């Protein structure tokens, strides 16, 4: 099975933002510049996540994805605030190829089943945000803000039974930190599932991605900070981001060598015999 390299773009108020442990969000720039660049660099897929949509009960990615789809011809997964059939239709009309549901599905399991029945398994992804609290992996909603009593291992099986096409799993402990993926978590969960699993949270360099794809059965590596940091400077220097970006991030990423170039990553993985899309 060909493994996928996926960029994740978190959006708040029309800007690409990034934080750590899903908190402390800072503006890095315009999402359409980053996504166009990632497409030109041969990214396999892009996730657009509205990180405040569930909290504010809204969904405003349509304008962005509609713009992005003029330049980006790889699949777009859209998530954040998806809680009705109408929300899904609206996303698909505006450039999404698949949608991802988290809070809306935890709060209303019937909605997941209904969505699968109408749009087919393969259109419906489930996003799970999990926090390891003393060895127990708990499901969180509202972009990591709200703790639930749901056990992550039970939830993945449950949503698989509902017929969803794929799961995107974020490790909140590792997210934004660059300390590598939580390999044990992803190994355990990928071995339990017969549907694809995408792993998110922790990638700092190509070797982190290699370990994830080599040591576990996940289908894709989701990367946010490390890509953004790598391309931020170029986009910043081109004055595309102008006053909107936060340069503090640059110092942080340079100091920690926290950066991945998509083309270099793909070369690195191909050299190490990981099966990925080559052109």
């Amino acid at each position, binding site marked *: 099975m*060909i493994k*996928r390299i996926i960029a994740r773009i978190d959006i708040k108020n029309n800007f690409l933002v990034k934080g750590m442990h899903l908190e402390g969000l800072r503006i890095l720039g315009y999402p359409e510049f980053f996504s166009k660049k990632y497409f030109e660099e041969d990214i396999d897929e892009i996730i657009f996540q509205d990180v405040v949509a569930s909290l504010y009960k809204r969904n405003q990615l349509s304008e962005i994805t509609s713009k992005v789809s003029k330049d980006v*011809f790889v*699949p777009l997964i859209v998530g954040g605030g998806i809680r009705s059939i109408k929300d899904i239709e609206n996303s698909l009309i505006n450039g999404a*190829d698949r949608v991802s549901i988290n809070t809306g599905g935890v709060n209303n399991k019937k909605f997941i089943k209904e969505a699968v029945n*109408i749009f087919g398994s*393969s259109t419906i992804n489930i996003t799970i945000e999990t926090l390891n609290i003393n060895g127990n992996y708990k499901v969180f909603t509202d972009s990591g803000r709200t703790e639930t009593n749901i056990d992550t291992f039970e939830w993945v099986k449950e949503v698989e039974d509902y017929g969803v096409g794929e799961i995107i799993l974020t490790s909140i402990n590792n997210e934004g930190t660059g300390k590598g993926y939580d390999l044990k978590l992803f190994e355990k969960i990928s071995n339990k599932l017969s549907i694809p699993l995408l792993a998110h949270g922790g990638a700092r360099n190509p070797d982190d991605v290699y370990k994830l794809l080599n040591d576990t059965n996940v289908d*894709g590596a989701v990367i946010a900070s490390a890509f953004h940091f790598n391309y931020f400077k170029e986009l910043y220097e081109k004055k595309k981001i102008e006053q909107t970006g936060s340069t503090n991030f640059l110092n942080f990423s340079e100091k920690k060598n926290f950066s991945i170039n998509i083309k270099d990553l793909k070369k690195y993985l191909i050299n190490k015999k990981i099966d990925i899309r080559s052109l």
Partner: protein
Amino acid sequence: MTKPLAAIINLNTNNILSIRRALEFVGFRTEIISENTNIDKFDMIVLPGVGAFNCAMQRLEETSLIKFVNESLNKEKYFMGICLGMQLLFSESPEFKKTKGLSFFSEKIENFNKFNVNKKTFIGWNQVKFNKNFFIEDEDFLNFNEKYFYFVHSYFVDCKNQKYEYGTSFNGTKEFVSVVKRSNVIAFQFHPEKSGLTGLNLLKASTKNFFS
């Protein structure tokens, strides 16, 4: 020269904007069709996919779009099916409940979960082995054969070595049909509109007749 006009059939459950953007990139004008309309002004009819087979057939019938589709198939209009839009051209699918399709091809759709496959829902990139004769120009075969395209599906058309099979792919050890062609009808199991530059170039190569 006016650009050729493509009708994109709207089933409410498909990724309409993605296919529209890709066709415009390739050089088409596009019009979204949500109800039965006179087909004469269109140069090509596109039936995109995403969604469940039974819901899509129901929607075609409720909106009488099925007349539009059948008329274009009968009049041998240029027609392109994508993903579910390819499967709908076949005779029957078991997705959720057994449902009759458009029966332009006689085979039935099958579910991956009955077979020895890697994933019962296949999401991602996969290679396509093309039949040389698919292409209008021979050199295109080399540009596309065994290249990666983007697939999202849990159902498939089994290989029977029929003459309309123009491309095949594998999920695990199960070989399935990924490209079909019969007279002016072509259809892809994958999403050329979402397969990067390779996909856009394939759309171009498959519609060269409109641009020469």
